[in-house]
């Protein structure tokens, strides 16, 4: 299978995956997609060349947000929706930390939607991993901002009447510089994406289709089912043509202002006609189209869709501090207190 051709083949540079496991019992439901995502993260971390104490895992509230407890790193289990803000503060205060935000679709996009778009806009260098199960797990099955229109849940017994957010569209629309997407079970691709996310300086948002076996089982099955996933997902890799399909016989071309799925060898299309993925394009146009591709008209794009270099918030802040310090007339608080208009009483 296509995405299995790449592995993490760099050497582990810090403790092994098991060193990242805390002594706490993992209490997600058996079969929950969260387990696989955590395994992939624990496998990827030793390859990042970062000592264990420099990792901070920060979360809000939800099933997925229990994640930090299971990690033998610094961890902060916050309050519902606010992990983005906590993480932004942690990173701004100490830019040496590798800050990871673990969040659910409800946590990040309902109650925390405002914080999410603003972190992305500021480009604080945090890695946000959204576990998207299109449902509220912890509160036992209400629809979320990513639930499909018409989804029947405990709080929408007759089907939702709300349009869902597409995380990719939201993030890229908010000037996101990094967006990647994957599926919980794809361990190798996930490790690869996490490494890319860490390497990227600025806010990285990774959306992972996660299966909640209890309240929303198989909601992503249409694209994740083993039988047809190769035909319904396309793995995007920077610099490679957009080919997909079990037999690697399909691809994406740009026709006019639209993306189009073509069959290689049919209607005269060859590999040379296919779009070559460029994750670094500043202009969000194509990335937005790629992020928005939906089954059945298109395959769903996984992999790093967008990775555009830009200065980060915390570096700009550090630079500003350095510059202002250089020009400052003050050496200590006493100087500040005596600045401006003062007078002597004798």
């Amino acid at each position, binding site marked *: 299978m296509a995405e299995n051709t790449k592995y993490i083949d760099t050497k582990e540079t810090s403790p092994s995956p098991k060193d990242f496991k805390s002594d706490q019992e993992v209490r997600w439901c058996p079969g929950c997609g969260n387990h696989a995502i955590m395994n992939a993260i624990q496998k990827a971390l030793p390859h990042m060349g970062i000592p264990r104490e420099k990792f901070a895992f920060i979360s809000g509230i939800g099933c997925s947000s229990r994640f930090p407890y299971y990690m033998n790193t610094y961890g902060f289990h916050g309050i519902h929706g606010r992990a983005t803000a906590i993480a932004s503060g942690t990173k701004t205060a100490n830019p040496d930390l590798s800050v990871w935000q673990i969040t659910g679709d409800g946590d990040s996009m309902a109650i925390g939607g405002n914080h999410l778009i603003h972190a992305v806009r500021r480009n604080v260098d945090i890695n946000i991993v959204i576990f998207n199960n299109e449902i509220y797990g912890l509160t036992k099955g209400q629809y979320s901002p990513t639930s499909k229109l018409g989804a029947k849940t405990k709080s929408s017994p007759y089907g939702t009447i709300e349009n869902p957010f597409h995380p990719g569209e939201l993030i890229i629309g908010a000037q996101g510089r990094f967006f990647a997407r994957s599926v919980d079970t794809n361990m190798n691709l996930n490790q690869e994406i996490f490494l890319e996310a860490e390497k990227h300086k600025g806010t990285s948002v990774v959306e992972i289709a996660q299966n909640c076996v209890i309240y929303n089982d198989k909601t992503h099955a249409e694209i994740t089912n083993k039988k047809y996933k190769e035909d319904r997902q396309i793995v995007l890799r920077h610099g490679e043509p957009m080919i997909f399909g079990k037999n690697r016989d399909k691809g994406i071309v740009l026709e006019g202002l639209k993306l189009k799925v073509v069959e290689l060898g049919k209607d005269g299309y060859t590999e040379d006609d296919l779009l070559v993925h460029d994750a670094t394009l500043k202009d969000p146009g194509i990335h937005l189209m790629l992020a928005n591709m939906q089954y059945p008209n298109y395959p769903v794009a996984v992999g790093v869709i967008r990775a555009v270099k830009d200065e980060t918030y915390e570096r700009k802040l550090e630079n500003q*501090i350095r510059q202002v310090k250089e020009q400052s007339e003050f050496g200590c608080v006493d100087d500040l207190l005596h600045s401006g208009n003062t007078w002597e009483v004798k």
Partner: protein
Amino acid sequence: MDKKQDVIEREEVVVRFAGDSGDGMQLTGTLFSDTSAFLGNDLSTFPDYPSEIRAPQGTIGGVSGFQVHFGHRQVNTPGDYADVLVAMNPAALKANAKWVKSGGTIILDEDSFTPRGLKKAGYETNDPIKEDHLEEFNIIKAPITTLTKEALKNLDLDQKSILRSKNMFALGMVYWLFERPLKYTEQFFERKFENQPKIIEANKRVLEAGYHYAETVELLTPTYKISPAEIEKGTYRNIDGNKATAWGLIAASEKSDLELFCGSYPITPASEILHELALRRDFGVKTFQAEDEIAGICTALGASFAGSLAVTTTSGPGLALKSEAIGLAIMTELPIIIVDVQRGGPSTGLPTKPEQSDLTQALYGRNGESPLVVLAATTPSNCFHYAFTAAKIALEHMVPVILLTDGFLANGSEPWKIPQMSDYPNIKPPIVPRGEKEWMPYARDPEKLARTWAIAGTPGYEHRIGGLEKDELTGSVSHDPQNHEKMVYLREEKVNRVVRDVPNQQVEGSQEGDLLLVGWGGTYGHLKTALDELRKEEALKIGLAQFNYIKPLPANTGDIFNRFDKILVCELNRGQFMDYLRMNHPKFNYLKYNKIQGQPFTTIEIKEHVKKLVEVNHYG
């Protein structure tokens, strides 16, 4: 200068500048205060302005005022009634005439008293003096607008800029009246408009024109002379409460050797703290203007986790939004300072007017058993000390601290004897030393009960914290019923132990006697003045206890209350502190005196009330 009038030597004087909110009254008042301060007067100011940036011109709603009280003895309040009122338009007269002392002087811009202007201000006749019964006042009608235009005739300035400088004409007149030199204000123009020589020239000309006008027409009677105040030796500056708060936090950053991080969202009247901190990148201050108050405190908490001195600043409605995150700070036992510059409420209430009605919110406004430390500053300048102290307590006890100030302290200013940082103590947060063995996140210092702080990034102390209840020692999530109960008491006791760092409550005036005035926060100046005057004029045996430490209360609180027959708790709310005192010291019988008008107390009303109470005692 040769004056025909008698010069009246006065102890103190109150001047009130009032005009349309576009008339620059705040600046006028500030310049006058600065000059008085340079001359060695003690002073206190009270800016009083509408919350609309440009309320309809010429209407009562748009009146902006600035009161300065200065004197040659200690001045504790901006004063109740003004000796001199400058009214730049009819609305300013209408709104402020009632605040002038009988026989006082009122300076009017005659040009603005047109039939249209009068009507807009709500006058029914064309004679505002008669209509408002101001005949016994010393009314000075000066054609301020005309003379301002005249002064700037050949300077090639647009009409708008010309009219904008008429406040300087009024200021010039007042300078003459009080024998103040123009030079400090002229220096101000030179600094402020460094690259606009024409504007400097215009302002100087108008200021001088006002001064000379007052001198030539000789209609100003009487003039006043205020000698320098008898105040302690030292170097002084003027400071307002918001700036003092910001600087106190910066001082705490220096003394704790921790980077200062402020996550905040703008709100009146707290915004200037954020502004001042944002200026101070040279002290390494990181300000984070968040998308809302919740993000403001959450970024600060994240920064605290990463080892910063974490602060968030706000006013009542913002404090309401922060409550869930304050609970998280209590649970994770991370140090954080929450500054609440109170204003009238509920909801958005009175954004620019002082009130003390967030006390209950500060003490209890959260889910669950969620104790924290509450402090209150009592003067604009001691905001510095209490911001510093809030940081010291938060960091050394690993506890959130709410510092209450209010709009009156925030914007009011006074001369401040600049302290030496060497007189301030170091701040020593319980950061775990590297290489400690057997460390547990929630193990505590047996004295303070503070847990130790392992700052994210330190090798060997990787650990997890969060909002779920935790095991007493390991900090792991725990739902054990006994453990929870224990933790609830522990967190409360930890806050109570702060009392060991709280100085004994002082009583001013009589140390025992008929009545104890009790106040907290920004009402200090008024209560102190009332106390001094009552003791002097009526020889009453009364004292004043003004509280800075609210939770925990000073250890000697009960002892103090024991020494007085009556306890009168005065607050700008319905009695929140009194309720709290009654809960903590139930054996006393408290009386209360409250005002909820978005205005500070006046000394007079406090005095009247106290006199009634003490008389009852004598004859009843």
